[in-house]
């Protein structure tokens, strides 16, 4: 039987309207969550609470060890652990209005702006105030990257800190006794330690200045000049910061000193960063900037490597910043749809503020603790190389990349321009940085503008 044209059109319009309505309704679902909490913390915990985290394999076992301790301390509580869950899965489940997630643990602070501003993670301040959690245990910088726009929706659970790694054997051969403290010294030492093949290609680099290689990122280099990223309104502060041009000029001069093409060819032939062929392991790099987790990789993959660590050098005129560095880390919060918020808070508080738990996690994961009692704990396994990262974490001038509504879009925009600049395609630096500002601000406006 044939439908008339009018009927078919009406049917199509009806279907379209129904779909559009479904779309709008689905987009609006899952909103809202209770922010009322119990007047006092439960005297005894009982029930089941779920923890979603991203760790897998050995690292998941470390998490499980601490969860076992939590369950032993709270016999009435069972923790359902879901490992290998990344940020996208977390956000999708929360957005669907599900109550499956009680506590979510993320590897990235880039997601904090979104989680806090949307309410995907609950505001923890009422719990913190009620239970009298001593937030002074957490440095201002770490507090800054785990909250957004005055909303504390997450607690830090360990951190990554960056510092300079140097090969002691290569240093000794060249008669160099200590790591460089200024960027000019870094250039000088790096050039001294660089060796070339007969055909002029690089055999060994003292330090690879290439932005984009391994952990060479603007955020990791930035503390050398105290580079600011965003202003108080969340817009770009890069173009107006006095330090970034100084740092970029130093880096560009360093690249030009060796030669862009030579560096590009050398860098292209290096092993993968997260493999035993990492160029610092193999001695192809005498110095490198990297995180504290590299000490664990070296223990495992290059145990004979004789190396030291030191804070990353600072630029001339910024010597007072020496000793600080870059810090960022994991964050955890209570999901909007959590059906067991008190249990979730108890677990979250344990993972983020219990000294023994944090020390155990840090020892197992080889990450840096985020509370001072754990940083100073005698139970924390600290080698000479690892000590540097503890000191940087405790340094009040240590910096981070602030949470933003556009995730890591602003660091990406800056990094992309810097890569062009080092290749000689960036044009006038001031104009280029103004362009970076515009790119970031336009993107922020798209999310938050009027």
């Amino acid at each position, binding site marked *: 039987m044939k439908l008339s044209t009018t009927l078919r059109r009406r049917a199509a319009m009806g*279907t*379209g309207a129904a*779909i*559009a309505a*479904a*779309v*709008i309704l*689905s*987009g*609006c679902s*899952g*909103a809202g969550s209770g922010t009322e909490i119990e007047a006092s913390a439960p005297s005894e915990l009982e029930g089941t609470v779920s923890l979603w985290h*991203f760790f897998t394999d050995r690292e998941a076992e470390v998490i499980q060890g601490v969860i076992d301790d939590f369950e032993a301390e709270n016999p009435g509580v069972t923790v359902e652990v879901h490992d290998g869950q*990344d*940020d*996208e899965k977390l*956000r999708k489940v*929360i*957005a669907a209005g599900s109550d499956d997630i009680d506590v979510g643990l993320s*590897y*990235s602070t*880039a997601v904090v*702006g*979104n*989680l806090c*501003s*949307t*309410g995907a993670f609950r505001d923890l301040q009422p719990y913190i105030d009620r239970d009298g959690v001593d937030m002074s245990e957490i440095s201002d910088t770490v507090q800054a990257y785990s909250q957004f726009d005055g909303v504390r929706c997450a607690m830090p659970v360990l951190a990554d800190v960056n510092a300079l790694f140097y090969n002691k054997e290569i240093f000794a051969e060249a008669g160099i006794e200590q790591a460089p403290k200024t960027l000019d010294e870094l250039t000088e030492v790096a050039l001294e330690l660089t060796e070339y093949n007969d055909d002029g290609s690089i055999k060994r680099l003292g330090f690879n200045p290439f932005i*984009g*290689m*391994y952990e060479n990122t603007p955020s990791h280099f930035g503390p050398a000049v105290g580079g600011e990223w965003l202003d108080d309104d969340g817009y770009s502060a890069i173009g107006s910061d006095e330090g970034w041009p100084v740092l970029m000029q130093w880096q560009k001069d360093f690249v030009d000193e060796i030669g862009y093409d030579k560096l*590009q*060819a*050398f*860098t*292209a*032939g*290096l*092993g*993968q*960063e*997260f493999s035993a062929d990492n160029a610092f392991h193999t001695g192809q790099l005498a110095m490198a900037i990297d995180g504290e987790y590299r000490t664990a990789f070296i223990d495992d993959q290059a145990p004979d490597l004789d190396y030291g660590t030191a804070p990353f050098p600072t630029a001339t005129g910024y010597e007072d910043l020496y000793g600080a560095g870059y810090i960022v880390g994991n964050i955890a919060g209570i999901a*909007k749809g959590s059906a067991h918020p008190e249990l979730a808070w108890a677990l979250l508080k344990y993972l983020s503020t219990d000294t023994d738990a944090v020390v155990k996690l840090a020892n197992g994961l080889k990450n840096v603790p985020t509370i001072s009692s754990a940083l100073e704990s005698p139970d924390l396994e600290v080698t000479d190389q690892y000590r540097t990262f503890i000191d940087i974490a405790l340094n009040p001038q240590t910096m981070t990349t602030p949470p933003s*509504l*556009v*995730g*890591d*879009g602003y660091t*990406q*925009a800056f*990094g*992309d321009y810097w*890569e*062009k600049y080092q*290749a000689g395609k960036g044009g006038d630096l001031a104009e280029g940085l103004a362009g970076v500002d515009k*790119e970031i601000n*336009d*993107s922020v406006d*798209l*999310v938050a503008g009027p």
Partner: protein
Amino acid sequence: MLAPALLGILVFFAYPLVASVFFSFTRYDLVSPPEWIGLRNYEYLFTKDPKVWSAALNTLWFIVFLTPIKIITALCVAGLLARARRAAGFWRTVFYLPSLVPPVASVVSFVFLFNPGTGPVNQILRFFGVDGPLWFNDPALAKPSLLLLGVWVMGDIMVIFLAALLDVPKEQYEAASLDGANGIQKVRFVTLPNIVPVLIFALVTGIIAALQYFTEAAVASGVASGKATVGSGTASMLGYPDGSLLTYTQWLYVRGFANYQLGYASALAVLLFVVAAVFLVFLLRRVDAFNPEGAK
């Protein structure tokens, strides 16, 4: 009887399409309710997005070069295999096998093979005194390097061509021979007209695949940059080197899932759909005009 098919179309085609169109007019981050902002996402797309056009050009490059070269290579190989007298099964297997390798594994293998420092390709070139290029690490050569990979995995379309070629009636070749046609004329007047539907299929699916080109370019960027990892930071490696492998769909992914701008990503998706639809309608109409049976 049509209900299951209709349901499938509604759930997997109509709903996502209508949803994308709706979200493209909103500010939407997946978690908060969408907020209607009119044409603002489109205004940003056409006037402010700093990378969308370079990403679109990269995608266009794959449409213009990867699709036809892959089809021509597959057709040539299928033609040779159709005439093979000995060990035909062996050669079919040899040429088809690469297409069974998962895309991620094949890209990883290729990037390691073409590693400028340690890869066997440059080592062989070095043995002959040739200084090999940087391949996946050179913005000018990264896309052509992926083209080599695309040709290597042409087995899937090659077997379809082979089936079509073997299906061409032998009598037509015999008749052409009696009429004095040479080899090229047989291909022009017998083979091609017979396999036009298969060629169109290969072209249409090839263009759609190129428009959605993502995995191979993303993995190549990650591995070639030396920072292959999963989870945090993957978005920052897309496009390496120097944005040369940043395709349109990767940019859509970055904006939607790394920058939490799903409303804007929906606008990008809608534009992609419109371009693909216009492209394919134009293509099919042109082909229709060339096909004597389809001429009206």
